[in-house]
């Protein structure tokens, strides 16, 4: 019984942890490239903000999946 709870918690942690790391990596690359683009073409600010925000969806989905694991898996 206790082992099952540990496994569920571990899976939930993985479900949010891995997308969080991937998001951080993607945002670091997109952020650096975006900063370079903005330095040359400031008119692209809106586009760059959207591009930086796109990887955020990964961690949001990870959070949803993690919550589902915690509260729906019995």
């Amino acid at each position: 019984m206790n082992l099952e709870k540990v496994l569920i918690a571990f899976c939930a942690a993985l479900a949010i942890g891995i997308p969080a790391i991937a998001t951080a990596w993607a945002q670091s690359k997109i952020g650096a490239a975006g900063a370079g683009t903005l330095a040359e073409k400031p008119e692209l600010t809106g586009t760059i903000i959207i591009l930086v925000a796109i990887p955020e969806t990964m961690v949001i989905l990870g959070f949803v999946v993690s919550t589902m694991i915690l509260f729906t898996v019995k």
Partner: protein
Amino acid sequence: MSASFRQSNDRDAAFPDGPRGLLKQGRERGYPVEYLLSRIRGRRSRLIRDWRPLVYESTPIEFIASAQYQGFVRERTAEGMWRALLREHGWVFGQMEEEVRRIFAPYLLYTELRTVFICLRCLHGDRTQKAGEVLAVSLLADSVKNMLRDGETSAAVERLERLFCRLSPEFTGLAANYEEQGLREVEQHLSNSILISVIRTPLHPVMKEFFSRIIDARNILSLYKSLRSGAKDPAVFIAGGTIATGQLKDLLEKDDLFAVVSLIRQASGISIAAPAPTQVEVALYRGITKYLHKEGRDPLGAELILDYLWRCSLEVMNLSLLLAGKDLEREEIAAELVW
């Protein structure tokens, strides 16, 4: 750092100081590669793409001064344009991370040879102030700059020989060249030796390919000049290009000037009708430009930076040519432009 920017770590063991040792040292850490690539993509889009209107419709000086031109050249003299190129190189260098600087050090040092030549000529003609102006924007290390700032030309060449010999023994004999044959021979020796020493070291694949093509171009030009002038201008071939030096020597022995046309096609993919002096050189440079332009399409590769640096050099070269040839026939000028 992306995979395309990595190179082997045995570089220093094989090449103690490396070309990087002769370039500016500093504590500036530069910026991430992704940032630099984005900035370069933006700046590259501002360079002149189509030179035809500039040749036929307006004067280059007016164009550079107009708001239409967004590039980095603002100066109105050939010397000023060269300084603008050095400043642009300095900007790119300042934005690079140390590992990227090491990758591009051979190219930057190769370009800075012209600074060395200008300074030596200035010392020769007692124009130390002009040498100082060029050195102010140069990427050369302080140790090299101090040698070229003032003093006797022969002493400067001697000091240069000692310093460059730390890079490769190929540079031995520079001072003797100066004593016996003058500055022209020193320049020839320096440019050949830099190519020989660079191509023998472990290079990033992009730099390796680039220098192979430069060596091909140089060998073909040397063959062409020698065939045209006979024994008066002996050919010097450098190993490391895609065309074997044996093949070049055979052609030299056969005394076949038209073989140069097929060599140019082989090395650059560009066909020329006849081996005319300007056509040969322009075709070889156009071949390198075409290759870099194609490779530079990769938005995340080192090729993009090299393509930009090369195109900056072409921008300055073409604008200087337009400036110098303002009284010449437009067709003649158009044939000599490289893009």
